């Protein structure tokens, strides 16, 4: 675990609010600064099932961090532990350096957005959004002002008097977000907030949440099983599998340099090639696949002999129809036209499957099943899994 954590490279540029601040200059001016969250060796079991298996994670103030994993990987459990809805079976959670296990959820001062929206059906939009302020003891005038501001930010002002049941799913989720941020909390927890929405709505709210994050500067802990969502939104992604964190890194690092086969296949499409190590020189490794095709790959692996798994992303493979000694000959099994992209499934002579994505161009006919192609890739587009 330790070296996985150490693996996250020097990705953050240090400025609070993450690398995306460069674009909008001063939009997040006088806003609150988020809390740091330290998750240390956390364990949670349900009977024989271990939902969180010694998880450690450091979240920096103002960071947008995504917990990504398939269902049952423990990401929601971890979020609920941070929220205080469930009790720890081991380890500790610190917020701004202070342990929180004795603080009940309602005194942690977080904001939270739920997958099912969880808007109070008996209250109007205004009453829902005012709820956290009223609980915090804000006076009427402050409450009204803050609610109006927040509704304005979320572009909900015209719906203020509506009941949740009178609104669409996207609007309801924006109300839920408004309720979560109205107190300007230092930490906002989001539990798959977009998974109930359709794709276009999801994409527009993704952008809204990202902008909001820059504006408020809160620390955001975001749970999702959608890798695309995680890549789009996060400063850093923590990938979970079977109750453990398998990698914590920036989206670019996760995509280009996954730490395990699981991360490689869970995030994005991938070709995992089983190959034999021929030679290792610095960070470059020379390998040979099953039918003897020799190629170079980037590597930070400690391996230097034996077999290794090499990741080649489908869009990094270039194809040609003319025979080439330095390329791998493959036979097309199927080719699907996806618009700007062609998705080709091919097979090597030894039957290994190779997925290729390439941009469509007018001067090229679509490959047909049975066609011979020559695939090649650059060493820097190729990653040996540690």
């Amino acid at each position, binding site marked *: 675990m330790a070296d996985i954590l150490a693996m996250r490279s020097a990705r953050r540029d240090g400025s609070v609010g993450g690398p995306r601040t460069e674009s909008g200059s001063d939009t997040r001016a006088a806003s609150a600064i988020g809390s740091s969250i330290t998750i240390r060796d956390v364990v949670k079991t349900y009977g024989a099932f271990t939902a969180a298996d010694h998880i450690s994670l450091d979240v920096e103030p103002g960071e947008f961090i995504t917990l990504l994993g398939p269902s049952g990987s423990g990401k929601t459990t971890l979020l609920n532990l941070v*929220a*205080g*809805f469930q009790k720890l079976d081991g380890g500790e959670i610190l917020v701004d350096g202070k342990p929180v296990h004795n603080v*009940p*959820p*309602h*005194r*942690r*001062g*977080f*904001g*939270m957005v*739920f*997958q*099912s929206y*969880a*808007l*109070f*059906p*008996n*209250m*109007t939009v205004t*009453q829902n959004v005012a*709820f*956290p302020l*009223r*609980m*915090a*003891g804000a006076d009427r005038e402050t409450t009204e002002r803050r609610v109006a501001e927040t509704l304005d930010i979320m572009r909900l002002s015209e719906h203020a008097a509506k*009941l949740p*049941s*009178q609104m669409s799913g996207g609007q309801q989720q924006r109300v*839920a977000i408004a*309720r*979560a941020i109205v*107190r300007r909390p230092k930490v906002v*927890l989001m539990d798959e907030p977009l998974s109930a929405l359709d794709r276009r709505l999801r994409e527009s709210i993704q952008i809204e949440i990202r902008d909001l994050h820059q504006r408020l500067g809160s620390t955001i802990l975001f749970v999702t099983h959608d890798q695309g969502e995680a890549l789009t939104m996060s400063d850093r992604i923590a990938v979970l599998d079977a109750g453990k964190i398998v990698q914590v890194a920036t989206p670019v690092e996760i995509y280009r340099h996954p730490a395990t086969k699981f991360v490689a296949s869970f995030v994005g499409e991938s070709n995992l090639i089983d190959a034999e190590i021929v030679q290792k020189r610095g960070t470059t490794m020379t390998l040979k696949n099953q039918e003897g095709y020799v190629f170079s790959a980037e590597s930070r692996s400690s391996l230097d002999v034996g077999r290794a798994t090499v990741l080649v992303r489908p869009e990094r493979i270039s194809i040609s129809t003319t025979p080439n000694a330095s390329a791998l000959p493959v036979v097309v099994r199927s080719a699907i036209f996806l618009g700007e992209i062609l998705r080709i499934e091919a097979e090597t002579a030894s039957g290994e499957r190779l997925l290729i994505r390439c941009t469509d161009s007018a001067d090229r006919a679509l490959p047909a099943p049975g066609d011979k192609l020559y695939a090649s890739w650059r060493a820097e587009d190729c990653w040996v899994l540690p």
Partner: protein
Amino acid sequence: MSATAVHTAGPTVSLSERLKDPAWLLLPAAAFLAFIYLLPLFDLFRISMSGSSWSVHFERVFAVSLYWDSLVRTMQISFTVALLCLFFGYPTALLIHKTSGWRQAVIATAVVLPYFIAILIRTYSWMVLLGKNGPINKLAVALGIFDQPAQLLFNRGSVLLGMTAVLLPLMVLSIYSSIARQDPSLVRAGQASGAGPLAVFWRVLLPLTLPGMGAGFLLVFVTALGFFITPTLLGGPGDQMFAMHITQQADFATSEGFLQALAVVLLVITLVVVAIAGRFLGFEFIWGGNKLSDSTKPSKQRHPGRWTGGALSAKIADGIGWPLMRLLSRMPVNTGTWTVRALGGFVLMMLTVPIVVVMILSFSKASFLTFPPPGFSLRWYEKFFSDTEWMTAFTNSLIIAAMSAVFAVTLGVMAALGIVRSSIKGKSAIMLLLVSPVIVPPVVLGLSLYSLFLRTDLAGTMGGLAAAHAIGGLPLVVVIMAASLQGVDRRLEQAAAVHGASPLTVFRTVTLPAIAPGMAAAAFFAFLHSFDELVLSLFLSSAQLKTLPLRLWADVNYQLNPVLAVVSTLEVLLVVGGIALARPVLAGRSKALA
């Protein structure tokens, strides 16, 4: 019924086309209810107005202080009982909701089980518990609270206690289904917004479960209005409830007309309460179900309107509620939990202890009821099984209950199919009619059937009694089967049909297997309903045809001997066995409703 009339509106439809719509399946149940339920009730109204002027009997009801006082008293007792049930029922429902695993199963069983045990037996168990030789008196004397055993029975307190204990499960189930229907993340959203458990309860859970509370309150209130067995056995002369006057008057043949007027007054009051309740809650509250999808109007439109009242009350709550709530959220986190545990635990004791005591007493060696028993023996079991009178009553009850279950299930399953699967209009109204026997006080129903049975020579026959019991069994079957049918995936049937199965084959191979467990449960409850039925039998049976509850009733009034405890124990075993068999079905059903 207007089942076929619906179709005449459209262009002319051939008979075979009409038969394809399963609405005609409603006809047998409709005919049955029309003959044995609506017609007698109609007669009841007619006879009540048969005096020199239509109102003469009613004037007497309201002029004689005996009846007027009793009416007021009945309202007071029913209202108090409903309040008590609400106060104790809510924490119990919360306790079921908050526990999980085997604990939840145990608590839920402790609540549900008594619900299915005959009221007569549960009342009897309280008589034993509170009696002079009962455990409470014994304990109090041993602790020095009383010098000698006190008379705890036959007063207002014992009536309230007994009725509350008998009706509590109804309230708990009503509130629980309302709580379980809520999105669990609402509570979490409240907490994440800074509201403590008590504040979340007060501001979120309580307002959202208000309809469930209202439904439970009114169900208990309406049922209590017609109560007869419990106040008769546990009350003193000052606790006469209205239904008791009807049975007393029924012994005098001279009171024809006046007797019916008494019944009509009770019925009308009940119906008015139900009508008002239905106006606000929707009549579905009677059977605790969800709205049947009426293909003609989308039910979604009702939702916003229903909450406008909530918005107003929220405004009032805003004015005084917030400071109070902030105070509440500052209280120790466990306050609410412990309140719920204490009150819920108390309720569970109230529901289970009397029955357990009676079960223990059935093995007593003593020749009279005393607790703890001086020794154990099976003498009372031997007495029960060797006594021909008891055994005749027992077999009579079994035969009648089996017949009644067959009637109710046959009619009920057809009716449920007709209502769920047809495109008939006014499904809610039809459902209301099918289920309405549940709210008619048994005393009123018994009286109305009395003259019909005399006229048709049904009185004192097994078939007649079974049919009368099926009036109450039918609603149970319809409700269970409607829920069961709604749970069947229509696409499975469509899949079978597409691949060549005829409608009858589809029903036999797809629908029937899916609803068979529900049918078994429905049959059991219809059987149990008849097996436990006392009030109708009091009116409709003869000296030659005694059922087990009638025999029990005679003995309870005459002498409290341990044979009654034996019968009670056997009944508990019957219910436990039945529930154990029906449990998977019930679990499935509550899931379908949530």
